[in-house]
C-alpha cells in the first residue's frame, strides 16, 4: 500500500490556490474579531513558520538578492514574473507581483492583505539562509505597500536588505 506523501514529494507538485485564498480572508475576518490590531503581526508570523518548515525541504541557491528573490517567488509562490527593484534608499527592495497568489479581488471589510503572509515567509527564508551561513546578507519586512485586496493593481512587497556589500 502507498504511504502518504512526504513533504519532499509535495514540493514537486503544484496546488490550486483559489478556494484556500478565499478561505484566508475568512480566517482574517475571524482574526480581526479575536486578535484585533495584531492581525498583521500574526499573518507575518504565519509566513515565518511556513518558512521554517519549508526550508527543511528546499532553499534557493545562494545568489545576489534580485535573482534569489525571483527564484523564491517563482518556486514557492508560483509568481513567475515579479518585478524586483533592489536599488531603493537604505537597501529598500520592492517586489511587484501582478499575480499574487494570496490576493486577487478587493475585500472591503478586511484591513490586512493576505500577502503579509508572503512577506513574512520570504524574509524568513532569507534570514534562515543567513543564519546557516549560506548568505552574507539578510532581509527584513518593511510592509505590504500595495495590495489587490485593498483595490490596487499590483501587490508591492517592501523589504530591507541587511548586511552584504
Amino acid at each position: 500500500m502507498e504511504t502518504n506523501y512526504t513533504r519532499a514529494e509535495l514540493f514537486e507538485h503544484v496546488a490550486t490556490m483559489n478556494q484556500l485564498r478565499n478561505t484566508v480572508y475568512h480566517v482574517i475576518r475571524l482574526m480581526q474579531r479575536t486578535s484585533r490590531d495584531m492581525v498583521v503581526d500574526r499573518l507575518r508570523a504565519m509566513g515565518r513558520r511556513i518558512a521554517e518548515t519549508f526550508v527543511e525541504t528546499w532553499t534557493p541557491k545562494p545568489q545576489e538578492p534580485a535573482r534569489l528573490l525571483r527564484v523564491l517567488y517563482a518556486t514557492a509562490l508560483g509568481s513567475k514574473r515579479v518585478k524586483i527593484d533592489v536599488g531603493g534608499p537604505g537597501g529598500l527592495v520592492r517586489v511587484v507581483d501582478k499575480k499574487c497568489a494570496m490576493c486577487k479581488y478587493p475585500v472591503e471589510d478586511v484591513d490586512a492583505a493576505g500577502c503579509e503572509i508572503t512577506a513574512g515567509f520570504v524574509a524568513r527564508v532569507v534570514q534562515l539562509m543567513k543564519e546557516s551561513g549560506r548568505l552574507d546578507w539578510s532581509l527584513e519586512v518593511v510592509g505590504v505597500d500595495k495590495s489587490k485586496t485593498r483595490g490596487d493593481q499590483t501587490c508591492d512587497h517592501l523589504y530591507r536588505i541587511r548586511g552584504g556589500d
Partner: protein
Amino acid sequence: MFKWLVGRIGKLIGRNMNALYYSLLYRELLREVVDAKRGDVNEAFAEFKRLGELGALDSAHRQESVLRYFPGEPLKLLEYMEVLWQVIFGMPMGEHEVVTQQFPGDEYPVVKYQIKRCPVCAGHGLSEHDVVDVSKVKDSPQLYACGIMGMLQTVANFILGIRGSDHKIVFSETACIARGDPYLEITCSIVPFERDEAQRSSASTLAGSLFSIEKVEDFLNRPMDNVKKVLEDVIEKNLSMTPNELLSHFENYEEDMVRVVGYLGVHLLNEYGGLVEKLLSNATIAKAAGYWFNSLKDFVRLFLPREVTEDYHRLFVELLEGLAPEGMVERFRGFNSFEFVTLVLEGCQMALENLGVDFEGLRENIWEELRESQADQEAWWFPDVVLSLLQELLTMSLKLFSLPVKLVVASQHAQVKTVAGSMRDLYEELKDHGDRILDILGELRD
C-alpha cells in the same frame, strides 16, 4: 474525457502555487482557528470547515458557468469526486477506493472515499510547528482535512443547487492519516434538502439550457454498458420486472426469441403511420414484397460476409450478458451466425404475413408468377424457354454481383470497426497532446 478536461482547465485557469507551501499555509490557517477557539480542537475543526465552505462559495459563484455542466443527481455527481478534488487541490486524488453502504430505509447509500495519500497532512507531526494534535481526537465528524471537507461540500451542493436537486451531500472526514488512520476517509451522506422558491426557479430555468455532458462521456466510455442500462431501465419501467426475469420466460425458447426480434422490428416499423400495412393492402405490392422478401432470404448468405454476421451475433450475445440468464447466453453463443440471421428473417416473415403478405400463395419464384400471369393472356409475351433463360441469367449475374457486394459490405463494416477501435487510441493521443498544449498555455500565461 470530460473529467480530464475539467481537471486540466481548472488547473490552467486556477492560481497555482507549490503544493508544499499550500499544505503549510493550510496548517497555519487551521492553527489560527485553533488559537481563536482557545485550543478547543473539535470546535476549531467545525469552524474551519465552515470557513472552507465560505471560501469555496466565493469561488463557486464566480465559476458557475463551468460548474453547471456537472451532473445534478447526487450519486452521479459523486462519480465526479475526483474532478471536484482536482478543482479544489489542483492535484490528482491518486489511489483510492470507493465503498458504498446502503442502510435499510435510506433512499441513497452512504459513499465513502478512502484516499491513500492526503496532500493536506503530508509530513504532519515532523516539524516543531505542526502543533495541531489530531491523535487524541475521537468521535468528531471533522478531522485535520476539515477545511477541505467544507470546500468539497460547498462545491458539490452548489452544483446540486443550480441543477435543481432536492438533496444535498454532507461531507464528513471519518478517517485521517494525521491521526494515524491508514487513509483519509471522506464519508458522503445524501440527505433531502428543501430549496427555497428562488433557487428552484433559477435551477429550472437553467436546467432547460443544459446538456448532460456526463451522459455523453458515459456513452463514449462504455457504449455497450449504456445500451444495457437503457434497456434495463425501459424494461423495469414498463414491465415492472428485471431484464433477467423477463428473459428467463424465454429460456429454452431462444430460437423463438430471435424470431420475436424480427417480428417486433417489422411491427415497430409499421408503428410510424401504419405505412407498411397500407402498402401491403395493395395485392400487387404485397405479392411483390413477398417475392422480394423470399429473394432476400435466398441471397442473404451471398451478400453478407460471414465476418459481418459473426460480429453482429457477438454483439447480441454481449448485450445479453448480465441481462439474461447464463444458460440462455451460452445457448445464444452456440448459434451459428447465419442461423441467427435466418431466425430474424423468419420473424420478419411472420410479421409481414400479419400485415397482408400471403407467402403461402406465392410461386416458387417471380418467374413462375410471370409464366402464370402470361398463361392467362391470349398472346405469349415470351416463350417459356426465354423466361427460363432470363431467370438463369439474372440469377447468375446476381451471384457474380455478390462478390463486389460482399467486398463493399465487408469493407464498410471494417471501416466502422476500425473507426470505433481507433476512437480509444485517438482519445489517448488527443489527451497526451492536450496535456502538452495546456502545459504550454500554462507556461505562456505565467
